[in-house]
């Protein structure tokens, strides 16, 4: 087993662990930390794929900004931690079965996958290449993304602002 495989296994299992913890923890802040664990391990996986820029963005945006926004959201809204024991054994079994079937399907699909030659020049100027791609090839979707952000911003304002009657 090469070092690469070991690192991959470590990172991917921590990513999955973070996801499972997030679903099972009770306190919201703990959940957030679990999500951060997932995000950081994903960033590690990106480094392994020679995508350093994506890894840096992942840490900056997801582990940093998104988490902070979520913390704000939690702190600024009324939040009562309610423990609901609503476990339906039938549903759990069905979901579990579905996951197993999905896993087996995907595993069988990718078992014999052969991609041919591995790329060797992935790490050469990759940030520069991303920049060139975005600003020459993908200008239209890039500009469209800015409208998506504008819409999201407007939506946040519309949904969060109190109605005129509320202030009085």
């Amino acid at each position, binding site marked *: 087993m090469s070092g690469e495989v070991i690192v991959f296994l470590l990172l991917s299992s921590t990513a999955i662990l973070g996801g499972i913890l997030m679903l099972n923890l009770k306190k919201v802040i703990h959940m957030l930390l679990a999500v951060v664990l997932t995000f950081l391990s994903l960033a590690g996986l990106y480094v392994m794929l020679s995508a350093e820029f994506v890894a840096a963005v992942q840490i900056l945006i997801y582990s940093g900004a998104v988490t902070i926004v979520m913390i704000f959201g939690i702190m600024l809204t009324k939040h009562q931690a309610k423990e609901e024991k609503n476990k339906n054994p039938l549903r759990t079994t069905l979901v579990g079965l579905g996951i197993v079937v999905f896993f087996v399907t995907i595993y069988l699909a990718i078992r014999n996958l052969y991609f041919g030659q591995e790329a060797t020049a992935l790490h050469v100027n990759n940030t520069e290449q991303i920049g060139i791609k975005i600003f020459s090839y993908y200008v239209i979707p890039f500009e469209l993304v800015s409208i998506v952000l504008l*819409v999201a911003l407007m939506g946040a304002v519309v949904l969060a602002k109190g*109605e005129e009657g509320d202030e009085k």
Partner: protein
Amino acid sequence: MDLKTLLSFEWGMMAPEFTILIVAVILSLIDLFGKDSIKKYIPSFAVAGIGLALIFLLFQYGHEEVSILYDTYIFDSFAFSFKFILLIGTLLIFFMVLSKQKDEEITDRGEYVYLLLSALLGTMMMASSGDLITLFVGLELLSLSSYIMVAMRKRNKRANEGAMKYIINGGIATAFTLFGMSYIYGISGTTKLVDISREMSSALGTTEPIATVGFIILFVGLAFKISSVPFHMWTPDVYEGAATPVSAFLSVVSKAAGFVIIIRLFVTIFNTGVEGNETLYSSMIGFVAILAILSMLIGNIIALRQRNMKRLIAYSSIGHAGYILIPIVSLSAMTLENVWFYLLAYSFMTIGAFMVIYILEQSEKSEDISIFTGLFQRSPVLAISMTIFLLSLAGIPGTAGFIGKFNIFVGAISADPAQYILVGVMAVATVISYLYYFNILIQMFIRQPEFEGRRTVNKMQAVPLIACITGTIVLGIFPFIALNFFS
């Protein structure tokens, strides 16, 4: 790339999109800084903008194919004809919005208008793009705008519930779509549809299982937008909760956009086999056929039990999504034409039905089916227009819905191999749908009115009604106008 190559592209072809974008931005600025006396006219400005975009689009009729920036924007006859439906549909919905001068439920009318415009922009980009990235960004622009529009009725409990369901379901569907796209990108190494289809047409070898999985996951994710099985459960709750024009938008424009992206992706990517070699699409047709059958049956059977009018239309729209999937299963030269015609007919009749419900809902403050009781005595005009729309939805000869269904029927039988099972299920589903459509007719013409007083239709309300009635009847009697326009 220098400025010269950038300017060498035919940017003028994007005029409809630019118009919508500029109008949306200007309207949001007016809403921010403008005086109240100008703000009143924001919806009218939007109508003018869409009209202008429609004119620009019509000037492009018959234009040769154009590709801008490596296919991230393409113009072809497919893009032209489907953008036509999207613009017409949104225009009719704006007439609906205009018909109500004061809106108590949605106080932020300005936001509502430019969110509709931005959603329209997303759908138009989906119609004319040959690249996975642009398609996905357009899809997300549409989704985000729709989530917000549904959630804007803040005081309404049902709207909150609907919006929550919508965003969670939508998030899951987006994850599915993206996951499927990532598999397809993984095996082809490109996001450009033409290149992907070239990769897919050569022997897939060991990557074939992955391509199959990607196909299924992608289709399941996109089923959300057309509200067909397995992502149909949000439809009734969201339609019921959202303001009626928004429901009409989701049911017509958003659904049309869903079909646009499905046709673009699946027909271009997967349907390009080498001669004699079975394509991935033809081997997966059974899967799509099952989804179509389930949508037709589930939508129409559950609609039988609905008393809330918007829920009823929601279930019937699930059924209609099933009908429109039939031509996609029975691929032939007629497929695009049939889907296009059905979507056009569907826009007129569904927006018309929503418009009648909208008028009655405002005067009776209820969405129950009882608002239709004795409508013929209270308002013959509304009763007759609703009759036309219902007959068309049911597919009675003389209306656009009949021609649409008939074309799909003939297309499925003459396809190779003929899809007899699908045609049979479609016939059964149509008969089931008669039960609930005709139940509304009984309420209107036979039952005694439960509400007092006559209802009149004012001028602004008449505009969308007349437009929809004209569309439904003209397409029903002279379908060749539209079919010639398409080809």
